[in-house]
């Protein structure tokens, strides 16, 4: 598909020949990059997913074949983890949107008159990135540990039963996903809301719309590009995430997501075909979901 770029380049008549040559040269590194680091591994992944075990081989030895049953086996064994991954990702995305929207609105619209405050707040949104994602997740595990302040408090007000805990539950995994992806939601939202023309809001109010109606019929539609790109940036990596749900971080054996199954098959079981098949299934499902979503929301002018 990368080559169609060349084709369309040459058919554009009015473009000067020389410039198209320059464009081609400029494109080359990008195309080479895609071929080498995207297309090649992808093909290798597809081929691996159809391999079958070497009859006389040791652990991790596979031979090329067309064993499509790998997909049936992998989905058959891990479908609850696939569903769980998308369920967790969906909840985390919705939560991140609900939390991020007011933040982005405040920074992008309300704080407009105070540029210094605006940049300070933006810095705060990005600030978590200054510390490694793994360390922050471990820190949450520490905060939510059984003898930690949160659990002790929740137990004392009887929200948690006396033998209850937070780490290793669906709650902590979704919490971790939401927390870790909030900046990815806030920034695109901010980028669209920052350009929001407030005169539309005034016009809405002048026409006797309640603040809520103005929000629903003016603000939200105008910020749709931000909502779509924010949800995509959150949902896609969250569905494939294996850190938050990992037993070493916020998860346990009852919260494993499909990413954890891929990791275990690849690194521990050395069952490369199963890991490859699961990865492709994950990619395909994400592609379908995102395709339908983008089509439904009708946002062609994304990012």
């Amino acid at each position, binding site marked *: 598909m990368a080559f169609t770029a060349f084709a369309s380049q040459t058919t554009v008549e009015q473009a000067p020949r020389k410039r198209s040559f320059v464009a081609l040269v400029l494109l080359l590194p990008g195309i080479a990059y895609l*071929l*080498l680091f995207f*297309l*090649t591994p992808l*093909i*290798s992944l597809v*081929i*691996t997913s159809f*391999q079958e075990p*070497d009859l*006389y*081989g*040791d*652990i*991790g*030895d*596979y*031979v*090329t074949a067309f064993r499509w049953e790998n997909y049936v086996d992998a989905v058959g*064994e*891990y479908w*609850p*983890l696939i569903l769980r991954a998308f369920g967790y990702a969906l909840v985390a995305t919705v939560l991140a949107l609900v939390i991020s929207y007011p933040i982005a609105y405040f920074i992008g619209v309300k704080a407009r008159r105070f540029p210094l405050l605006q940049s300070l707040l933006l810095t705060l949104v990005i600030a978590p990135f200054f510390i490694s994602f793994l360390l922050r997740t*471990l820190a949450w*595990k*520490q905060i939510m*540990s*059984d*003898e*930690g302040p949160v659990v002790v408090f929740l137990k004392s007000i009887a929200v948690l039963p006396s*033998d209850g*805990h937070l*780490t*290793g539950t669906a709650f902590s995994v979704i919490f971790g996903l939401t927390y870790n992806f909030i900046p990815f939601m806030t920034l695109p939202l901010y980028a669209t809301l920052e350009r929001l023309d407030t005169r539309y809001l005034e016009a809405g109010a002048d026409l006797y719309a309640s603040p809520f109606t103005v929000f629903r019929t003016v603000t939200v539609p105008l910020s749709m590009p931000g909502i779509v790109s924010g949800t995509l940036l959150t949902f896609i990596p969250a569905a494939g995430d294996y850190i938050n749900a990992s*037993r*070493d971080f916020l998860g*346990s*054996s*009852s*919260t*494993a997501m499909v990413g*954890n*199954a891929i990791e*275990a*098959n*690849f*690194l*521990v*079981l*050395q*069952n490369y075909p199963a890991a490859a098949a699961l990865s492709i299934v994950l990619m395909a499902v994400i592609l379908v979901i995102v395709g339908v979503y983008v089509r439904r929301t009708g946002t062609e002018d994304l990012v």
Partner: protein
Amino acid sequence: MILQAIRHSQALQKARSVSLSRRGFLGAAGMSATALALAACSSGGQRADLTPAKDVSATEKTLAWSNWPAYMDEDDDGNYPTLIGFEDESGITVTYNVDVDDNNSYYAKVKDQLALGQDIGADTVCLTDWMVARLVRQGYVQELDRANIPNIANLSESFANPDFDPGRKLSLPWQGGFAGICWNKEKVPAGLKSVEDLWDPALKGRVGVLSEMRDTIGLIMLAQGADITGEWGDDDFANAMDAFTQQVEDGQIRNIKGNAYLNDLQSEDTFAAICWSGDITSLNATAGDKWEFAIPDAGGTLWNDTFVVPMGSAHKANAEAVMNYYYEPEVAAELAAWVNYVTPVVGAKEAMDLIDPELASDQLIFPDEETLSTVHVFRTLTPQEENDYQAQFQKVLLGS
């Protein structure tokens, strides 16, 4: 098939030992996606027919050594005193890489180079004995030259003849340890005696176990009366898996982890755990004397992390020099005083008496015959067993 053809090609072997590096890489990078795809059909299988890389130790005084974390004595500045001693004595510059975090993931990382007999970035590496057994079985490691390791005479008799390498021709133990049970003395004042004690309802949701199958399932099998060293089969394994699955599903077992189980003990998410001996000594030293380790009544497991020299290593003699050095009883004692694991070196105990008599009587570092009789080595699994058992174990870990 292609790989096998490549393996046999003399030209490549020459290129491998001299400089596979740049040309090899560019060649590979230049390959079309299809060719790469074909190369992906790695034909594994039978024992690889590899020959050792040419040893250039005489001219190149370097050694790259990969090992596990916290496995080398360290001073306050982060230097390794015993290793510096070796460098001074031998004139060999050692690149000590702490990059083995897990047997399986390390193997997954280097397996393609191993299969081709290429340099894996380590001239010697210390892996756990069951993984070493796999490397030996596949013909991935070089034979050691005993003449270069005179101190091999100090190798303890109990480690001299493992089932995967009788007579220690290809491997040499680095440090070993036990898997047993431990508990928080404040929360479980009565202490624990057996694996069954971990299933006490009072500890519900507060028990951690290791994600290392051989240790967790090994301890449960021992508790069920199986002899993990000798003859046992699918039924014994299945019985232990049933008991394990039951405890996970009931929520008795809170979590199943690798080295991170120590964090759980420290944060008191878990009060008791299946754990590794030396870790508890270190944890007590850093986080207050709160935990106690014991080998369960029915017995514990014994493992060793073991030196091997991969086929692609061009510095075997240098690797043998470092092994020889660490088999000096004085050096072994100095090391053991820091890492708190079982040393395979005879005479280290006497040397330790001079450094710290208290440590010399520590059964976790210098186990006597009586202690050793309570721990057992998990027998080497066939590839089929390993695949099958690991799959069952991972199924529980993933809750699928």
